[in-house]
C-alpha cells in the first residue's frame, strides 16, 4: 500500500483553488487509499518544511526553489499574475524614492526577491528589514514603508497615498507575467497519479471560484475582519491570479531568475527547472545584454535603437508614450537604412485567395465570415475550377505566389488541404504562402493531431510558408474581448515556433485599434521578438532556416463590424507603431507597409518610418475590403509611389529574393 504524500499548502486565498478540493474530496489512488495528507502554512514555512523533509510536496515560493534545484516541479500549475496581483504591494506615505526603510513580510521569499530586483533596477537602496507576517503595515510612517503580501493586502487602509503593485511593476519592466509559487516535491516521490490529481484539484477548484469566494468572505466576517463583497474575491481568483504555468508564464519565470541573478541577488545562474514525471522542456535562464541605468532619456534610447541596440520592454513603452513622431520616424529610418542600405524597396505580385468564408470563430471585428450554422447560401468553399481560374490569372499577371487564407471551416479536414496543395503544385508554378496559425490550430483540433504533425503533413503536400494573420493583438486581455473563440496568444506563437523548427518561414502581424494600451502593444512586439530569437538561435546552430521574414502592422477597419468601438485608429498612430516596431523588432529583417488599409500616400510616407517593402499588388482581397478599405494599385502604381519616396522599386518573392522582371 502506498503511503500518502505529505503536502503543505499555503493558507492564502490565492492558493485555495489549488488545494481546497484536496481537503473536501481527498483523491484516492487505485488501491482506494488517500493520495495526500494535507496541512497549511505560510509560503516560506512551506519551503522550510520541504527542505527539512517534514513534507514531500509543498507550494513553494519560486525564490526558494533557486536554493533547491534538486526539487521537482509539478508541470503546468502555478500561482502567477499577468500584471497587477493586488496582494503583493509596497505601501508608504512618501514616494518610494524618498523611502529609507521597507519592512518586509517574512512570509514570502519570492516577493522579497522581486522587490529587491525592482529596487536594483530603479537604483534605489532603502534598508530592507524583516517583519513577522502581518506586522509590517503597522510600522509604515514617514520614510518607512512596508512590503505587504497575502490576504493582509486586502485590508490595507486607504490612508497610504502610495501603493505599488509589484506584479504590475514587473509587467511594466519586462512585459511578462510574474510567477510567485508552484508545487515542488522531493525528487522521485511524485508519480503520474499525483500530478493528475493536483491538476484535477486545480481545475475543479477554479470552477468553484464563486463558492470559494463566498466561503472566504464568510470566514473573514466570522473572524471580525473587514470583507469586500463576494464578487471582489471571485474576480481575484478568476482574473487576477492565473493558475496555469503556460508558455508566457514560463518565459516570465526565466526572466525573473535571470534578472534577479543579474542584480546579484542569488548565485543560481543557469537554472533548469525540472518538471516531474512529464516530458517537459526545462526552462533555462537566457543571457541578455546589460541594461541602461534607471534614468530614461528618450533621445538616448532612440539613438541606441537607431544604432541597432536592443530596447527593453519598459523602454519601448517610454518611446510609445513619449517620443515625438518625427524623432521615432527618424530613428526607424536610420535603422531601416542600416539594415537595407541599397536604397531598394521591394514588393511582390501575389494574389490573396480566401478559399472559404465559413468560419466558427465568430470574431467581433470580422465582416467576412459566415457561421456554418447559417442555412442560407452565403457560405462558400471555392471549387478547384474557381481556384484554377484565379491561379491562372495570377500567373498571367506575373504573380509568383498565392496568399491562401480562409475561415475555420469544420467541413475541411487535413486531406482537403493536402489534396489542394498537391493539385496546385502539379498544375502551377506558384508558391503557397498559406494558412495562418489560427487555421493550423483549427486543423489540428479537427484531426486531433499535434500542430507539428499538421505542419509536417502540409509542408510535404506543398505549403511553402505561413502568413502571420490572426495575431491581432497578441495579448489575451485584448483577445478575450474581441475574439474569445479564437486561439490564445500562447497557441498562436507556438504554431510559429513549430513552423520555424521544421524550417518554414513565416510573417508576423499586428492589428491595432482595439483600444489596447502601450503595455499590450509592447508585449505583442516583445513576444514576437522572443520567438524570433529562438528561431535565429536554431538557425545559427545549423538547425534549419525557419524564421519570421517580415512584420506588418495595420489599423483595425471598424466600419460595419459588430465590435462596438468607435474607430480609434489613425495614420498618425500607424506611423508611430510602424517606426516603433522597426526599432523594437531588431531581429526581424523586413517591414511591410500596409497601403490597402491606409492608401498609397501614407504608404509612401511609411517608407520613411522604417518600412522597406511595399507589400503586394492587390488582385483580390475580401476581408478588410468588407470593412471599408478600398484601395487598388497595380505594379506600375506601386513603383510610382516607391520612387516618390526616393527608392528603387524591385520585385521579390516571399523569401525576399529580388526577381528579374522580363
Amino acid at each position: 500500500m502506498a503511503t500518502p504524500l505529505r503536502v503543505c499548502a499555503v493558507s492564502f486565498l490565492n492558493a485555495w483553488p489549488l488545494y481546497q478540493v484536496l481537503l473536501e474530496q481527498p483523491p484516492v489512488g487505485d488501491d482506494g487509499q488517500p493520495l495526500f495528507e494535507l496541512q497549511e502554512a505560510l509560503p516560506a514555512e512551506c519551503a522550510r518544511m520541504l527542505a527539512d523533509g517534514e513534507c514531500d510536496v509543498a507550494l513553494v515560493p519560486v525564490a526558494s526553489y533557486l536554493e533547491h534545484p534538486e526539487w521537482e516541479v509539478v508541470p503546468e500549475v502555478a500561482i502567477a499574475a499577468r500584471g497587477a496581483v493586488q496582494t503583493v504591494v509596497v505601501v508608504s506615505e512618501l514616494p518610494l524614492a524618498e523611502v529609507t526603510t521597507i519592512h518586509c513580510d517574512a512570509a514570502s521569499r519570492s516577493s522579497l526577491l522581486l522587490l529587491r530586483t525592482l529596487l536594483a533596477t530603479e537604483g534605489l537602496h532603502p534598508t530592507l528589514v524583516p517583519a513577522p507576517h502581518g506586522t509590517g503595515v503597522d510600522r509604515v510612517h514617514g520614510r518607512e514603508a512596508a512590503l505587504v503580501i497575502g490576504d493582509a493586502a486586502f485590508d490595507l487602509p486607504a490612508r497610504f497615498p502610495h501603493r505599488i503593485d509589484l506584479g504590475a511593476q514587473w509587467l511594466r519592466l519586462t512585459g511578462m507575467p510574474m510567477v510567485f509559487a508552484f508545487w515542488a516535491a522531493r525528487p522521485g516521490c511524485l508519480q503520474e497519479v499525483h500530478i493528475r490529481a493536483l491538476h484535477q484539484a486545480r481545475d475543479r477548484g477554479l470552477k468553484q471560484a464563486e463558492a470559494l469566494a463566498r466561503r472566504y468572505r464568510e470566514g473573514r466576517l466570522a473572524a471580525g475582519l473587514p470583507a469586500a463583497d463576494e464578487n471582489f474575491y471571485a474576480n481575484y481568483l478568476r482574473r487576477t491570479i492565473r493558475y496555469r504555468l503556460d508558455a508566457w508564464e514560463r518565459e516570465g519565470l526565466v526572466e525573473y531568475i535571470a534578472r534577479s541573478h543579474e542584480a546579484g541577488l542569488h548565485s543560481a545562474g543557469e537554472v533548469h527547472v525540472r518538471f516531474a514525471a512529464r516530458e517537459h522542456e526545462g526552462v533555462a535562464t537566457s543571457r541578455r545584454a546589460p541594461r541602461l541605468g534607471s534614468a530614461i532619456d528618450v533621445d538616448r534610447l532612440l539613438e541606441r535603437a537607431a544604432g541597432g541596440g536592443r530596447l527593453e520592454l519598459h523602454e519601448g513603452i517610454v518611446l510609445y508614450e513619449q517620443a515625438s513622431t518625427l524623432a521615432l520616424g527618424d530613428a526607424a529610418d536610420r535603422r531601416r537604412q542600416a539594415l537595407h542600405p541599397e536604397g531598394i524597396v521591394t514588393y511582390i505580385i501575389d494574389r490573396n485567395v480566401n478559399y472559404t468564408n465559413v468560419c466558427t470563430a465568430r470574431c467581433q471585428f470580422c465582416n467576412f465570415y459566415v457561421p456554418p450554422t447559417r442555412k442560407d447560401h452565403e457560405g462558400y468553399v471555392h471549387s478547384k475550377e474557381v481556384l484554377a481560374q484565379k491561379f491562372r490569372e495570377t500567373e498571367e499577371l506575373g504573380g509568383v505566389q498565392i496568399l491562401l487564407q480562409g475561415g475555420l471551416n469544420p467541413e475541411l479536414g487535413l486531406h482537403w488541404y493536402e489534396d489542394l496543395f498537391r493539385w496546385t503544385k502539379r498544375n502551377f508554378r506558384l508558391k503557397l504562402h498559406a494558412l495562418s496559425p489560427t487555421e493550423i490550430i483549427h486543423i489540428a483540433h479537427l484531426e486531433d493531431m499535434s500542430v507539428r504533425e499538421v505542419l509536417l503533413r502540409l509542408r510535404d503536400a506543398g505549403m511553402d510558408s505561413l502568413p502571420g494573420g490572426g495575431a491581432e493583438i497578441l495579448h489575451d486581455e485584448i483577445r478575450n474581448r474581441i475574439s474569445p473563440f479564437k486561439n490564445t496568444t500562447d497557441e498562436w506563437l507556438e504554431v510559429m515556433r513549430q513552423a520555424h523548427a521544421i524550417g518554414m518561414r513565416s510573417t508576423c502581424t499586428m492589428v491595432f485599434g482595439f483600444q489596447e494600451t502601450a503595455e499590450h502593444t509592447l508585449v505583442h512586439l516583445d513576444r514576437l521578438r522572443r520567438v524570433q530569437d529562438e528561431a535565429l538561435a536554431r538557425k545559427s546552430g545549423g538547425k534549419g532556416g525557419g524564421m519570421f521574414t517580415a512584420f506588418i502592422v495595420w489599423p483595425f477597419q471598424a466600419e460595419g463590424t459588430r465590435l462596438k468601438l468607435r474607430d480609434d485608429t489613425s495614420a498618425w498612430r500607424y506611423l508611430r507603431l510602424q517606426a516603433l516596431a522597426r526599432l523594437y523588432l531588431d531581429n526581424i529583417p523586413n517591414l511591410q507597409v500596409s497601403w490597402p488599409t491606409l492608401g498609397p500616400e501614407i504608404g509612401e510616407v511609411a517608407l520613411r518610418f522604417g518600412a522597406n517593402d511595399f507589400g503586394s499588388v492587390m488582385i483580390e482581397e475580401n476581408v478588410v475590403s468588407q470593412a471599408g478599405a478600398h484601395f487598388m494599385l497595380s505594379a506600375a502604381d506601386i513603383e510610382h509611389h516607391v520612387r516618390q519616396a526616393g527608392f528603387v522599386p524591385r520585385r521579390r518573392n516571399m523569401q525576399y529574393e529580388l526577381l528579374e522582371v522580363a
Partner: protein
Amino acid sequence: MTATDSARLSTIRAKVHEGEPLTLEDGVFLYRYPDLLAVGSLANELRERINGDRTYFNINFHINPTNVCEADCQFCSFARLQPGMPQAYTMSLDEIRHKLVERQGQPVTEIHIVSGLHGGVPWSWYTDQLRVLKQVRPDIHLKAFTAVEIHFFAQHYGKSYEEVLRELMDAGLDSMPGGGAEIFAERVRRKICRDKASADQWLQVHRTAHRLGLRSNCTMLFGTVETLEERVDHMLRLRALQDETGGFQTFIPLAFHPDGNRLGKLPRPTGIDSLRTYAVGRLMLHNIPHIKAYWIMIGLDTAQIAQSFGVDDLDGTVQEEKIYHMAGADTPQAMTRSGLIRLIREAGRTAVERDTLYNLRWQDDGGPLPGIRSLEASMPYSRRDQRVELSVL
C-alpha cells in the same frame, strides 16, 4: 546624402533659427534633400515657435453660387463655360439665402464663397449675395471672391480693383480667400490657366485689399507641370508682398487632382510631395503666420501627419464642397467636430477653434468628446487601477 548636403542643411537651420529669409536655392535644396524627416522637423521647429502646439480649425461651409466660367483652366473639373450646358448651374439669391437659413442653429462662423467667372449676370447679383446672407445672420463672417474673380469683376464691369472691393465691403465682404494663385510663373500659367488674371494682377488685387484693411489668404496649386524652382519662386513672390503689406494670414498649398479634367494624365498627388510642400512652405514663408492643410483634398490621414510638417491649421468642418469632389477627391465631405479634435489631440496638439481672423473661440482642455469613447473608460477596472499605480514608481 553627402557631407556637403548635411552642412548645407545646417546652414539653413542656422538661418531659420536667426529668422533670416531663405533663398530660392535654399528652398529648392530643401525640396530635393533626401531626408524628408529632417526637413519636416526643421519646419516643425518654426511651426512651434510661431504657433506653439496649437492646431486651428474653424466651423464654416462653402457656397459655390455658380460654376459657369469664362476661363478655361486645364486643371479644373468644375468650370462648365456656358450657361445651359449639362451640369452648369447658377443659384438664385433665394437659393443662396436658403443655404444659410437651413443651417440656422448650427455653430457656423464663416461662409467661404467662390464662383466661376460668370459675366452673364448683373454686378448686383454678386454684391447682393453678400447682402442676403448678412440679412440672415449679420454676425456671419463672409470670406468671398478670389483675386481672380475680383480682377474679372474689374474688367467686366469696368471698375478699378479698389472700387470693386469697396462695393463688396459695403455689401458685407469681410475677408478674401487665397484661391486662383495657381503658380505665378508665366510659363506655367500659359499652359494651365491662360485666361486667368496674371501673377502681377493677382498680387495687385491682394495688395489693394490689404491696403483697404482686408485680410486674405494665399494658395499655391502644385503637382501640374511646374518645376520645383517655379514652386519656390511662387512662394518668394508671396513673401515679398507679405513683407510689404502683412495682410496674408495663411498659406494653403493645394495638391492637384487629376480626375475628370484635361490634365488627367498627370499622376495623382503623393503623400511625400504634399508633406514636403507644407514643410518648405513653412520655412520659406516665415512671415506668414499660418500654414493650412486643406484636408478635404489630401485626406484626413495626410492632414493629420502634416501637423508635424509645418501645418498649424486643418481648415474647418466643411459642410459642402463641390470643386474638389468633382475632381475625384474621395474624402468624407463633412468631418465632425469631435472627429477632427480627436485627430488633432492624437497628434499631440491642442485643438483651437478659431474665427476667420484667428481669434480664439474655444480651446481643447482634453475633456471627453461627444461621440468619442475615451480609451480609459473602456478598459477593465484592474487595468485602469494599475495605470494609476504605475505612475507612482
